[in-house]
Structure formats: structure tokens, C-alpha cells
């Protein structure tokens, strides 16, 4: 109780003294870092398109809508969280394989096509999401002979991953 006035106290709990007002809806923030988010980006887009579009329309309608579009923004966050938790539930290893490759290669998608292929296969099978890159002639994951097929290290690790998966089954 007197802890506040004790000058020998060097540790304290960092509590937010200025919480958000009650009329702003609560939401759980997205906990994934940059590489997993990039890896999951198109799948998040596939499931959350209506929410994302709704959010952007709201922003357009409200001149930026920092306060007006909080509700729509919360929906976007919740949707992204749902996709990420599903990915963690059904495709954890494949997801990890892909985002660790991205992290090693400066988040360059072209360097990780092999692990991406494995990840895609798992997601298509388990989550029934599509991968649709907007505004391109040909979808890169459907291309027969892409120019960038992934780094040699990515190929090696993907092969090892498939082998270990097979030996488990």
C-alpha cells in the first residue's frame, strides 16, 4: 500500500492509467509478426475481403474515419485473428516452414516458392481458402515454370520437411 512512496522500490507493474473510453469496442489485437503475416496475407484477404472492403468504404465515406470506423476496424482485426488461429491449428508446421524461409530471405516471396507450395497445399485442403492475387494475368502459384523457384536452401529444407512428414505417417 505504501509502495508508491517507498523510494527503494525499483519494480512496478506497468498499468495503463488512461484506458480507452467505454464506448470504444474492445478487441484482441493480432499477435502475429511481419513474416507470418506476409505468409498468410492472401489467405487473410480471401476470408476477410468483405470486412476489409467494408472498412475501406467506411473510411472513404467518413473522410478518414479514425473514430467513425472503429467498429469496422475491429471486425477486420477479428477476422484476421480467426484466419491466423486456424492456420496455427491446421497447418502450424507448414506455416512455420514458409515464414521462417521468408525471414531468412528478406521477406522475398520469390525465394520461398517451394515451402509456399507445401503451405498452400495444406491450406487448400484444410481451410478451403483460395489464393487470388488481384490484378495479374496469371497466378504465380499456378504457373508451370516460374522464373524464381525458390532458393536452393528453401528447396533443401522443403525436401527434408516432406521426408520427415512422410516418415511420421
Amino acid at each position: 500500500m505504501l509502495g508508491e512512496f517507498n523510494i527503494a522500490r525499483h519494480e512496478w507493474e506497468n498499468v495503463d492509467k488512461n484506458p480507452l473510453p467505454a464506448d470504444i469496442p474492445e478487441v484482441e489485437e493480432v499477435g502475429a509478426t511481419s513474416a507470418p503475416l506476409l505468409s498468410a496475407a492472401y489467405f487473410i484477404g480471401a476470408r476477410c475481403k468483405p470486412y476489409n472492403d467494408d472498412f475501406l468504404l467506411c473510411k472513404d465515406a467518413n473522410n478518414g474515419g479514425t473514430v467513425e470506423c472503429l467498429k469496422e476496424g475491429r471486425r477486420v482485426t477479428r477476422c484476421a485473428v480467426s484466419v491466423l488461429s486456424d492456420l496455427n491449428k491446421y497447418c502450424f508446421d507448414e506455416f512455420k516452414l514458409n515464414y521462417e524461409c521468408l525471414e531468412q530471405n528478406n521477406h522475398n516471396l520469390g525465394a520461398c516458392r517451394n515451402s509456399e507450395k507445401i503451405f498452400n497445399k495444406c491450406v487448400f485442403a484444410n481451410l478451403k481458402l483460395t489464393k487470388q492475387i488481384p490484378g495479374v494475368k496469371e497466378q504465380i502459384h499456378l504457373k508451370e515454370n516460374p522464373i524464381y523457384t525458390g532458393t536452393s536452401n528453401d528447396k533443401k529444407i522443403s525436401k527434408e520437411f516432406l521426408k520427415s512428414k512422410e516418415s511420421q505417417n
Partner: protein
Amino acid sequence: MPVPFEGLIPYTIMGMFFGLAGHGVGFIRYWDNGWKNDRFNLDEYDQKMMQRDFLLTGIKRGQTSEAVAPEHFKTAQTELQRYYTPYRDQFFSFRERLYRGYVTGNWEFE
């Protein structure tokens, strides 16, 4: 006229030292990044995301695929703080560290 191999020995040694220096620095950077390659060509978005990654994981270049962020992340922030110096980055860094020690009372030079 063939060059006798003895004449090339100094150049071999010099080349080896260049190689040692380059690979040594490369190894240290790789280690310092948590056994990851350097990031390069970073734009402001990338910088911001790396900042956010640090707030989420608490380590440099840490990554996690956790769906929900911990509670404290909602109000977490970092601010870049600098002390005043008229000679920023112009002289030796040890001098600036001394200055920092005088000003902040923190004398731990790691």
C-alpha cells in the same frame, strides 16, 4: 615467362586476410541477427513492422505466429530518445558515451 610460386605467396596471404575479415564480419552479423540473414532495402513500412515485431516478441528479429497479441501489446510503444550533442556522429562514439554517462549517470559501457 612463368612466375615462380614463391612470388605469389604474399598475395595469397593478403587475400586470405581479406577473406577472413569479410567472412568474420558476415558471421558476426548473422549471429547478431539471431542466426538470420540481414534485412536490406527496407522501407518505412518494413521498419515499422520490425518495430512492431520487437514489441510482440521482445527480441531483435524475433518472429511468432501467435494469433492473439498479449494484453500489454495494446498499449505498448517505443520512442526514440536522443541526448543533445552539437557533433552528432562526427567524432568518436566513446566520447559520446562519456557524455551520456555524465548526463544520465549511467556508466555501463557494454
